[in-house]
Structures are given as C-alpha cells and as structure tokens.
C-alpha cells in the first residue's frame, strides 16, 4: 500500500523508548516448554491468522477480546498506536497465546488483552504475568491500568493478584479501571510470575524461525469444542 510520507509523519505517533522484553521459557503442567517472547512487528500477520478464527467464538467472550485484539495488533503493525507491544507464547513453534499493551506515559502502562489459544494450562495466567513483568520490571513503570472483559479475566487478574480499584477510566472503555502497582506486583510475583532465562538457543531459534499456527478448525475446537470442554 502506498504511503504518503509527509502525512505519515503526522499520523504516526512518536514512540517512547522501550527496552525489549527478554524471552523466557516456562514449563507447563503437561511438561511442554512455552517460550514467551516479544513479537516483532513483522510477526503480526502470522499472529492475526490465529486471532481471526477466534472472532467468531462467543464462548467466554472470545469474540469481543479477539476483535479488539485484532484491531490493536493491526494498529500496532500499521503504526497507529503509541508505544505498543505484543508478547507471544509458543510451544514447539506453535502460537498458544498472545498478550498486548502499551505505554500511556513513561510511568503508566495500559494492559490491553490476553488471549489463550490452548486452554486448561494456565497459559493466559503465565502470559498476563509476563505482560505485568514487562511493564514493571523492564519498562520501569509505576502502575498498569487493567480492565477485564470476561469473568475468567476478572478472576485471574482482579482477584488473584489482587488489583486495586480506581476511579480512572481505561481506554478500552467499560468499567472503571483496576490498577497493578509496583508494590502489588512484587507481592504477587513469587506465586504468579515464573520463567527461566536465558532460553536455550534451540528453543528460542525454533520460536523465532516461524510462528506456526493451527488451522481454524483446530483453533475453534481447542477453545470451544471438545478439547475445550
């Protein structure tokens, strides 16, 4: 697509400096190794192919979360959102989960969405924790603003951490935002944030080589079909 360079300079937000998220590896309940790493902008098209089938799954608000995530990732890919990032979880190269967010200011982060493709392995919990780890420990932020769009998200974030309620609005709209402070994060870290670094080279190379994604039927079945039961 042709880009008007002059207008692009106006439309493209200036980014805050963002140190990279160092990859880590997590052993899941089934023994599989999940590599958690920051997706590059050029990874987005492959990620969207996994998100797309989820747009049509009503169960557990996958449709809402996926539709919004799709738009957010596209905006990130096309430089229409400020200081955004995306972390992915991969098992054997396959994409099993996605989280994203952005820096609102240097001190305040915005959590966007968490989408688990493989369910029942706490992949969403691990990836959300990685997202919080990125905001607090690597971006050095003081607070992260978070809302949940599904009861599962509410249980996992608001209750498990637990987050503190604010009267601030979150840019996703909906209810008033909850907040993870540095203090809350470090209090929760021993029981919720895990992962080994560095990631063994073979695992990281496999993850970076290509983001593999399951076919639409498999994705839908893993979320809402027999295997998701």
């Amino acid at each position, binding site marked *: 697509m042709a880009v008007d360079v002059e207008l692009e300079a106006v439309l493209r937000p200036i980014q805050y400096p963002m140190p990279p998220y160092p990859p880590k590896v*997590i*052993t*899941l*309940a*089934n*023994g*599989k190794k999940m590599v958690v790493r920051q997706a590059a902008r050029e990874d987005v098209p492959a990620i969207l192919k996994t998100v797309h089938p989820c747009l049509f799954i009503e*169960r557990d608000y996958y449709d809402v979360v996926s539709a919004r995530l799709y738009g957010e990732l596209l905006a990130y890919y096309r430089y229409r959102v400020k200081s955004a990032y995306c972390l992915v979880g991969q098992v054997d190269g396959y994409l099993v989960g996605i989280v994203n967010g952005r820096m609102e200011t240097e001190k305040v982060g915005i959590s966007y969405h968490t989408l688990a493709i493989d369910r*029942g*392995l*706490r992949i969403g*919990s*691990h990836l959300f*924790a990685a997202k919080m780890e990125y905001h607090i420990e690597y971006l050095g932020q003081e607070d992260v603003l978070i809302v949940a769009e599904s*009861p599962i998200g509410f*249980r996992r974030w608001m209750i498990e951490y637990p987050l503190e309620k604010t009267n601030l609005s979150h840019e996703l709209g909906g209810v008033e935002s909850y907040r993870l402070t540095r203090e809350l994060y470090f209090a929760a870290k*021993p*029981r*919720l*944030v*895990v*992962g080994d670094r560095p990631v063994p080279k073979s695992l990281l190379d496999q993850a970076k080589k290509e983001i593999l994604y399951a076919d639409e039927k498999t994705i839908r079945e893993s979320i809402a079909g*027999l*295997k*998701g*039961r």
Partner: protein
Amino acid sequence: MRDVAIIGVGMIPFGRRDEDSLLDMLAYASLKALDDAGMGDKTVNAVYVGNMGAGIIQHQTSIASSLVDRLSLLPAAADVVENGPASGGSAVKNGLLAVASGYYDYVLVAGGEKMREITGWRATDFVATMTHPEVEYPYGITLPGMAGMFTQLYMEKYGVTREHLLAVTLKNHEMGALNPYAHVEMLLDRGGIFDSPHAVVNNPVAATPLHLYDLCPVSDGAAAVILCPLEMATKLQKKPPVLIAGFGQATDTHTLQERDDPTDLKAVTLAAQQAFDMAKLKPKDIDVAELHDAFTILEIAESEHIGFFKKGEGGKAAAAGKTRLGGQIPINVSGGLKSRGHPVGATGVAQLVEITFQLRHELPKDRQVKGAKHGFTINFGGFGNNVVSFVLKRTEP
C-alpha cells in the same frame, strides 16, 4: 429377592456442555443405555434420576417426570433421588431394590448434573449446601476446605505425602487422556505440576495441603443404566448382562467434628463390607475399582477403608504403581472423578457404566483390565456421611 443385572449402559462425554440442558444430557445418556440394552419394544416400568442440584442451579424440579415424558416412556413411574454426590449411587440402589423386589422388571436409572452454567464460586457454594447448616456452612466451609483439613490429618496420622497424592493425579490423568468420556483429557507432567519452580503457577494451592490438580473439575454430564432381573436379562442377549452381586450403603455423622477420629471413614468401610458380604467376595477378589476421588486423598483413604490396602499403605501403594492398570488392583482406570469429571448426580451411575464396560471386556487394550470378572465402586456423599457401594460380577466365563 431376585438377582438384578445391568443390561445396558450409556454415557455422554463429561465436560462443559453449554449447548445441552440438563434434560438433554439425561435423555442422551438414557437413549444410549436403552439402545445398548437392545430393549426393542420392552417397556420401562420405572425411571430413577440421580441429581443433586437442578432445584438450585437450574431452578427446575421433578426432572424424572420430565425425562419420562422426553423419552416417551409414559406412564412409567418416575422418581428423583437426591443424596448429594452419592445421588447416582442411591438412584441405582433404589432401582435395584425395585427390580429385586419383583415389583418392576425394567428400570432406567439416569444420573446427571449441569454445573458449568454457574461460576466456579457458585458451584463450590452449591456443593457446600450438603454441609451442616448450623455449624459448618455459615462459617464458610467448602468441600475443598474439608478435604484439605482431612488430608492434613491423614498425612500426620498415616504418613501420606504429596508424592503419594501426585501419583494418584498423574495416574488418573494418564487414564483420563485415553477415555473419550473424560472431561480433562490431558496428560500431566510431574515436572510441570510438582518438581519445577513453575509449578507454583501451574498447580497452585487450593486448600492446604491440596493443590489444584488434587481436585476434580466441575463438570456437566450424565450417565444411565438399565436394570432388569438376571433371568430375564439373558433373553435379551444383545450384550452379556453384568450382575449386581452386592451393594451397601452406610451413613456417618453429618459433621466431621463429631467423629471420634475424623480420618476414619466408617461409612466407606461399612458400605463396602455390606457389598462384599452380599456378593460373598473379599477385596482381594476385585479386579477393577472405581473410587470416588473428588480429591486425590480420597482415592488413597478409600482404598484403605475398603480393604484393598492396610491403613497407611494406600499412598505407598499408589506411588508404587499398585493401583495402575496391570497393578495389584487397578483403580479409576476411567480417570476417576479427577479426570473424567464429577457432575455430582451423574458420578455414581458413571462408575457403574465404567465397570460394566470393564466386565464386558469391551474397552481398548490400553484401558481394559485383562480378564476382569469382579468390579467395585464407591460413591461418596457429603464428606463420607452417606456412602453407596456396589460389587459387580461378569456373568460370562
């Protein structure tokens, strides 16, 4: 009293079944059982439905009447049996007595529960309605909470360790992964849920000392059996009948605190003993057992109270592989409640369905107990205050 046989069984995959109502599930399982029995135009005289929570969760009562109508079995007699998580076992017991008495010839017993349409919190609260309304429930006790305290005591008294509990978890998930009816068809890994530091997230504490994977899932599901007198069963000849050779039921104090020794599951011992006596068999004669492992500790404790192992030996036996397929006494080859799932009203019936599969020798090799002749079940209600057991016997050589 007439000898009573199971001549047909049916079950639907357990799990989260958003698309099905409770009645749908009961009907699916019942139709499968009727078909399995080769009933043809035989008349079902009575229907018993084991269910604990339709009145609370679905705001629906008289589901046995609804089921009879749905299945076009009018004017069969219809009763709901509510006995907490032992509702399924109790329903089968009532059906068995009706046939044994000579009053009815063909009885359908279905058990079912739909628990996933409410949140996990509400499901836990619903199950806790079986606790004492004055001295337990108002103080926030839950079944996982009771199981946690029971486990702690059992560990202190009998030396059960987390390694022992882990052996039950891994075994039951290994078998559940092979069972198409199982809710959680997922192999677990020792590293992922126990050894690795990452296990703190994968397998968090649920009720000290129990962790997430020590607890059964909350499930939707249904199962059904067809009962008839043994002498009439042989005439149907679609599949070999399985004799209900013995049954037992016993109760214990409502509250755990009133028991002389809270680790002593007297009702389990008594119910099992009654079933063994009636069947003229002993624990050593049993080839395969389905125990009520709503919590991993229960599989271990029940295996001791039944008499498969001495007190204090159940955990070690599990860790040594004695309860695995091919072991001394294969327990929960279905995956148990732990992996197959626990739709509370369905469980007692599902256990009998599984044992019937085993005694008809029709499971795949990786789940079939070779040459199984005698099977045993324990359906554990409350926290051991109402327990139903059965001994089943293969009728063919």
